[in-house]
């Protein structure tokens, strides 16, 4: 074993935090006893001098082993590395780096009043936009004729119909005529009175040229069915009042073309108006009765007819 010079100067294995003094090693070497620390430094210096000066042909492996053994005796390596402990030591050695990161991402760190206001404002905008969108969809749904609180009016480019609806509807109590019997009436008012329908359903104004109507009423398994037609071919005016069962809802499908569907509210009723190649049809619901008026008339004439239903004479 070669003798080693002892040099207390310098320690090659310890580092600094770049700010102050050299500190203890982070990893790899246990803290040596103070007397051996200097001795270790001497041996290390000798070793590095020899290692970087020796030529390949003079390289002595035994000397290398001796150096390493001596250094290990003076500063033994730990049996195993504790990575977590090493990381903690690293954090302790360079605290300034981690403090900066904590400040950037720590929600507990007080924010400036201005950034707080911005965050609140952005949040309010998101909530307001969501509520506005929800209301807009409801309004547009209503504009499209979808009664979001009752039966749903639906339509395509070709047809109009009602779907779904409230579970409970006012049910008509019996009928004055047996099921299947067909009765003729003079006027719509007579038919409504005979079937004990008290709601205002009969128009008081008709298109020019309509003087008489053929009114018929009957009782079907679904209930009352009253229908009235004009004799003329030009306007082909028709009114019908059909009772429906609550579980089925109004089941009539009305033909229409690709023109838009209008909704006209009079009183508490929403009347839907569609056109099918010149044939104007209005339909609405009164309790469990689907009302339909149709004829080759204009939309304004249809609205006039609807208005007259609710006129108080």
């Amino acid at each position, binding site marked *: 074993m070669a003798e080693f010079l002892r040099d207390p100067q310098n320690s090659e294995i310890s580092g600094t935090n770049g700010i102050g003094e050299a500190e203890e090693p982070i990893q790899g070497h246990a803290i040596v006893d103070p007397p051996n620390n200097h001795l270790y430094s001497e041996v290390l210096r000798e070793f590095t001098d020899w290692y970087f000066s020796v030529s390949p042909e003079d390289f002595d492996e035994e000397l290398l082993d001796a150096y390493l053994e001596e250094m290990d005796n003076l500063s033994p390596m730990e049996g195993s590395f504790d990575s977590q402990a090493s990381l903690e030591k690293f954090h302790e050695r360079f605290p300034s780096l981690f403090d900066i990161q904590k400040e950037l991402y720590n929600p507990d760190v007080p924010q400036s009043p201005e950034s707080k206001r911005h965050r609140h404002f952005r*949040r309010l905008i*998101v*909530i307001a936009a*969501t509520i506005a*969108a*929800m209301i807009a*969809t*409801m309004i*547009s*749904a209503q504009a*499209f004729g*979808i009664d979001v609180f009752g039966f*749903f009016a*639906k339509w*395509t*480019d*070709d*047809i109009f*119909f009602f*779907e779904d609806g409230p579970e409970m509807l006012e049910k008509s109590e019996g009928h004055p005529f047996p099921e299947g019997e067909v009765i003729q009436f003079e006027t719509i008012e007579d038919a409504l009175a005979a079937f004990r329908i008290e709601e205002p359903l009969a128009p008081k104004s008709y298109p020019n040229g309509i003087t008489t109507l053929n009114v018929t009423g*009957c009782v*079907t*398994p*679904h209930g009352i*069915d009253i*229908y009235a*037609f*004009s*004799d*003329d*071919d030009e306007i*082909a005016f*028709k009114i*019908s009042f*059909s009772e429906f069962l609550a579980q*089925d809802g109004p*089941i*009539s*499908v*009305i*033909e*229409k*073309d690709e023109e838009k569907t209008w909704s006209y509210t009079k009183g508490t009723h929403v009347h839907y108006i569609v056109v*099918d*190649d010149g*044939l104007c*049809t209005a339909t609405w619901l009164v309790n469990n009765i689907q009302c*339909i008026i*149709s004829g080759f008339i204009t939309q304004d004439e249809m609205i006039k007819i609807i208005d007259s239903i609710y006129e108080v004479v």
Partner: protein
Amino acid sequence: MRKRLKKATLLIFAICLLSSFSSVSAAVMRSSDYMQSYSAYLTSKGGQVSVYATVTGRNNYYPKIGTSTILIYESTNNGKTFSYYGIYESEDYPSMMGSGGRYSQVAISFPGTRGNQYKATVYCYAEDNTSSEEIAYYTSAITA
């Protein structure tokens, strides 16, 4: 937390937007040049099942207006599946087709099995001097 709130809000908005556009039910299929409105339904009394249909034409006069064909379907498993039950054609049942008017009410009955469900495809029909048209109407199911 904020990201979750934002995601939940957007999801609710998307659901509301989609729900405002309702889809067409399976009741009817296409437009008609002959018919103004039509409907059909089934009823049951003591196991006897009846099909009622109403067809209204655009004009006041049609040589033929009513139902040309009624297909009946039956379910024995609470409506999970339906199988073909029977067919009624106006050629065999003249009461299915009216003539000379604008409005037709049709009613046919058949014996059903109590507890089974039935539904029908009703072909509403109208014919004038030049042509004719037929539209299928699918009824809801009822339990006999």
